[in-house]
Structure formats: C-alpha cells, structure tokens
C-alpha cells in the first residue's frame, strides 16, 4: 500500500482535443517503457483491466467482432453497456465502444517501448474530466505493466489523488472555463 500512498499524478500533459462539427474528440498520448505485447494484454485482458480501467469487462477485448459487457466502476449505479470490438489487431490497434463513446487505442513502437494513443469522443463539458480521469488511469496502468500494481483509482478514489487539480489544469490547457466540480456542497464529505 505504500506505493499507492506515495502516488501523486504529475502535471497535465499529453492531451489534445479536436472539434469536428458538434463532435469533440479527446486524444491522449502516453509513452510507456514496456513492449506493445504487454500493453496490449493490459488493454484487453479483463483481469488486468480490473487493475486500472474505469470499467469491468466480462470478457477479453482482443478479438474483432466480440461482444463484451462493460460495467462502470464506483458510479452510484453501475452503468452496463455492451461493447462490440470493432477492430482488434494485436498489438497495434484496438477499437470498441463504451456506451456511445468510441474508444480507439493505437500502440506504436517507441524507443524500445510503446507510444500509446487513445482517441475517444466525449462531450465538450466532460472533456477535461475525461482527460484528468484517464491521466490517473494511465499512471496506474504504467505501474501495473511495470509489475508494481497500486490498484485502480477511479470514481471517488481519484478525488483523493489530485483529480481536481488535473481537471483544472486540463480545462485551462483546452481553453475552457474553470470547471465547477465538485460543487461546494459536495466538498464537505
């Protein structure tokens, strides 16, 4: 648990947003020291997803055409949605939907490791929230692949680990108004 206690996310970094008509896309890039095969496993294997992702999967995401149920973790009510794996080319490209969010992951070789890029469509008002949440998830993913798992940090846990600061930093980077979350009343507890 000491690894978890010592965890603090770094500054907001590696995120871009793109607007295409009314559709907003969040693009997150993370350079990892590990092989694409290892990263691929962490993105597709339900047991590894449980260690870092904001959802649980009831099956492996690594085969094109597979249908997998994804369940949000630590939301007041679990949101269950059926994901269809639109494309899985190990260890290069993975594409599926999480509810109405399209998730496209690309794994490129990078200096002996992997450059991981996520494209996901997300409403404008949630784009800084998404960037902050995935930032923390990617930190946890990195530690998991390094063989030093600290356990996933999602939902309310993220609030204890600097999510609000990241949220404000990403909002600023994206040129958006300072986000009003959590609301004053909710900060007491």
């Amino acid at each position, binding site marked *: 648990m000491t690894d978890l206690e010592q965890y603090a996310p770094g500054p907001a970094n590696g995120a871009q947003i793109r607007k295409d008509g009314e559709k907003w896309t969040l693009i997150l890039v993370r350079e990892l020291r590990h092989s694409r095969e290892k990263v691929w496993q962490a993105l597709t294997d339900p047991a590894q997803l449980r260690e870092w992702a904001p959802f649980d999967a009831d099956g492996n995401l690594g085969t094109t055409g597979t249908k997998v149920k994804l369940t949000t973790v630590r939301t007041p009510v679990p*949101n269950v949605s059926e994901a269809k794996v639109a494309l899985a080319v190990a260890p290069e490209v993975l594409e599926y939907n999480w509810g109405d969010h399209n998730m496209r992951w690309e794994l490129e070789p990078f200096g002996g490791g992997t450059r991981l890029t996520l494209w996901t469509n997300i409403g404008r008002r949630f784009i800084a929230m998404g960037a902050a949440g995935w930032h923390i998830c990617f930190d946890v993913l990195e530690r998991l692949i390094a063989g030093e798992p600290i356990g996933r940090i999602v939902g309310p846990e993220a609030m204890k680990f600097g999510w609000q600061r990241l949220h404000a930093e990403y909002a600023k980077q994206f040129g958006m108004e300072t986000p009003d979350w959590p609301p004053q009343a909710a900060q007491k507890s």
Partner: protein
Amino acid sequence: MKIKVTSVYVDDQDKALRFYTEVLGFAKKTDFSQGPYRWLTVASPEEPDGTELQLALNNNPAAKAYQQAIFQQGQPAAMFFTDNIKGDHERIKARGAEFTMPPTDVTGSTIAMLKDTCGNLIQLTQLARYSH
C-alpha cells in the same frame, strides 16, 4: 437526514436537460460523467440549494417498462409545486410544451399535467391555500 434528491428516468439526458431548463425554467445543478454514466441534476432557481431532481438515463429494461406503464395510465413521474399555476401553464406552453391537462381545480389544489418529451408526465400543483 434530508430529502435532497429525487429522480425521474429520461430516455435522453441532453434532451431532458434542455426541456427541464429551457422549457420548465430549472437550472442545471450538477453534471458529472464517468464514461457512459452521467449524474445530472437540476434545481429550481427559486431554491438553488433545495431539492434536486436527477435526470437519470433510463437504460434499464425494468425501469423502462415501469415508466411506460405509468405514463400510459396518466400518472405523473414527478410533481412540482407552484404558487402561480396559470402563469406557469401559459409560460411553459408558449415554449412549446404539450399539456395533457390544463390547470384544473381538484380537491385542495389546482393541477395541470404536461409531457416532458422524455417519456414522462409531469404534474404542476398549486395548493388551494396559495390561491388569491
């Protein structure tokens, strides 16, 4: 303990937010998402720290069946209280809402019923003691 939030199921949260703010006149209070999960509430501008109404996505088949059944029976999914039901009726109607019942005197109150465009009937109530 306090009654702080109550909810209605809606078939589309964006559409519901537009209706409950632009047509009914409530204000967005909290809006938070984690992937496809979205916690969305509105509150009355007359009572910004009062009870919130959660606009919950109805992606649950059991809740959907319940929502449709009570809608077909003409039962409201939520009730809002006003001290000017005739004025609210005119204002909300002018913004395009469809009333299934205009302001009607019943025992102890005047009520009206409208469709929220998201699968629900909403009742407006003005208690008789507030009448002039």
